[in-house]
């Protein structure tokens, strides 16, 4: 089933679609409030983007510097070509120490590598400990958002789920009550865990340390209790120096949830006196991607989720409709790289309104890349798949330059100027009932012309 079909099922429930839409818009609004308090916000985005661009141009050197310094800190470093290699390495470490129970904090990389099913099939109990992750693990579902994995689930559903699995009171859907129940349940797991796995937000070449940003405290509960701590990172997580953390810790949480900083920003440099620390560096297609002139800058992504929260399509179609580990605008430019045919519909799951580019803290040209992927897909002859009902509008616009011009103009105009009621007449059915984000200032049309599209 493609994105359009899945989305159609999602939006069939209007009430739920509106609720999902509003929940995400609420977060987007919190982000706006947070960034307005930082006078140098735009300058920070420029700097963040440039640091990442510099890193990608020197990635080999920084990775080697990172490894050297981490080894000197007494940390074990592992290199993984792909997801399977990564899973084998993690399993190998656990097996060596005869570990059968691990706790895991949120990590999109381990989702990408499908670590949980791999470890479980090898007889290891994997407990996701971030509350949202635990909820979807209990439901046997993938995350629907990279920062808010359970954003698609209502509290009544969590209440029901916890009643069944954690024995909470029937009918009690109070978030405080349910969070406390999860706390007690997870405490038991922390106290017996032998291994702890986390993701990595930033890896500092200069010091060989990894930085993990969280709110709940679960990542630290695990890493500081379990004798063996394992941090899994994509190789693009490297930054040159500690001073660059100053930039990224300022933009990450503000972009993600509108917090000035996450509750915990943990710097893991050396293992505990009685423990072992491992870092697994994963490629899984990233080094190949570096060669793609039009698309490599997607490797700058710091996984804040802001592009999802602002995207009218994401908000109204839900993360699961994308059927890729990373949903939303950024997922739609990452996915075609892994399997062009399978994910050829995703670059069309966009109005090209450009709002994602406006909010991205590292200034990835997401909408431009969506447009470029459409051209690649058109050339490769996968456009046939795009004939589905809800894709017709965008696809026909793509084929007809005049229409495209009119459409984008109207989109831009309506995003900026029109009251909600007028916006409803646009061909963007996803955006119904929606207060729209500010439209991109640079015109797509101009850019398309410039780039000879």
């Amino acid at each position, binding site marked *: 089933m493609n994105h359009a079909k899945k989305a159609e099922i999602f939006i069939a429930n209007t009430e739920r679609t509106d609720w999902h839409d509003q929940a995400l818009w609420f977060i987007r609004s919190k982000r706006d409030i947070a960034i307005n308090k930082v006078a140098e916000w735009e300058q920070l985005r420029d700097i963040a983007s440039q640091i990442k661009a510099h890193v990608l141009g020197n990635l080999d050197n920084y*990775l080697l510097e990172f490894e050297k310094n981490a080894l000197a*800190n007494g940390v074990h470093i592992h290199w993984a070509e792909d997801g399977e290699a990564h899973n084998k390495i993690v399993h190998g470490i656990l097996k060596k120490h005869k570990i059968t129970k691990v706790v895991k904090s949120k990590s999109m990389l381990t989702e990408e590598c499908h670590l949980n099913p791999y470890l479980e099939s090898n007889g290891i109990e994997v407990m996701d400990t971030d509350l949202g992750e635990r909820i979807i693990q209990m439901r046997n579902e993938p995350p629907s958002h990279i920062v808010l994995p359970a954003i698609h689930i209502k*509290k009544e559903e969590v209440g029901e789920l916890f009643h069944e699995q954690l024995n909470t009171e029937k009918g009690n859907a109070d978030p405080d009550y349910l*969070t406390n129940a999860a706390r007690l349940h997870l405490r038991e797991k922390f106290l017996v865990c032998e291994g702890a796995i986390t993701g990595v937000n930033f890896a500092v070449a200069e010091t060989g340390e990894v930085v993990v940003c969280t709110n709940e405290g679960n990542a630290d509960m695990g890493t500081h209790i379990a004798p063996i701590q394992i941090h899994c990172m994509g190789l693009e997580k490297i930054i040159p120096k500690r*001073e660059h953390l100053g930039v990224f810790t300022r933009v990450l949480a503000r972009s993600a949830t509108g*917090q000035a900083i996450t509750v915990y920003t*943990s710097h893991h440099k050396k293992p505990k006196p009685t423990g072992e620390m491992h870092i697994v560096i994963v490629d899984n297609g990233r080094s190949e991607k*570096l060669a793609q002139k039009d698309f490599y800058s997607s490797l700058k992504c710091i996984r804040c989720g802001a592009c999802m929260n602002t995207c009218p399509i994401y908000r109204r179609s839900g993360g699961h409709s994308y059927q890729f580990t990373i949903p939303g605008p950024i997922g739609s430019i990452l996915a075609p790289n892994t399997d062009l045919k399978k994910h050829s519909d995703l670059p069309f799951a966009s109005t090209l309104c450009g709002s994602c580019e406006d909010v991205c803290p590292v200034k990835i040209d997401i909408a431009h890349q969506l447009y470029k992927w459409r051209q690649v897909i058109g050339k490769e002859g996968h456009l046939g798949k795009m004939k589905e009902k809800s894709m017709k509008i965008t696809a026909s616009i793509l084929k007809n330059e005049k229409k495209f011009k009119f459409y984008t103009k109207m989109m831009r105009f309506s995003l900026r100027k029109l009251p909600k009621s007028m916006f409803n007449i646009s061909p963007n059915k996803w955006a119904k009932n929606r207060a729209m984000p500010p439209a991109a200032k640079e015109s797509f049309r101009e850019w398309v012309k410039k780039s000879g599209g």
Partner: protein
Amino acid sequence: MKNQIINRIKSNKPENIDLPKIPNFGNNDSLLSFIEASKTSAATVVHIAENQSIEEVIQTHFSNHQRIVNTIPEIDIEGIETKNIAPRDIHPLDLAIVQGAFGVVENGAIWVDNQHLPHRVIPFIAEHLVIILDKRNIVGDMHDAYRRLETHSDSDFGVFIAGPSKTADIEQCLVIGAQGPRSLLVIIV
């Protein structure tokens, strides 16, 4: 494996662009603004008065707490000895008292590192956390914070803590006290 990856990066990597300079933004480093920011992160802040002792403040806030870890020798509150126990055996812990190195005005975060912690898990495993902070140790923003860390002695583990643990994973409702401390009291001396 490593060599293959590194070689592929070498041949595929884009052109170098120079690292940007990070300016000094000169953000406000006033104690009052720090206290405001801490409150936003749901911490309670007490600026100690002349004739008040830290012990008194802690006792008024936490009168009937049984198991305490006090990592600051200058504070006269008796706690359990953690030297020879495994991190997991610190549980259950009602209260932990730790030293903060400096606070950051822009977000209310406080740097805590392992130099003052017999176990890294202490500030996370406690039901309630108290951080002691010297009023002279306040910096404006995160750039200042990392500049400050350059002169700070090296630590194996360090963390910026901004408020008690939180989650909004159930329908975006903010819940204070997720997996870590349910409250944070910052005592400014």
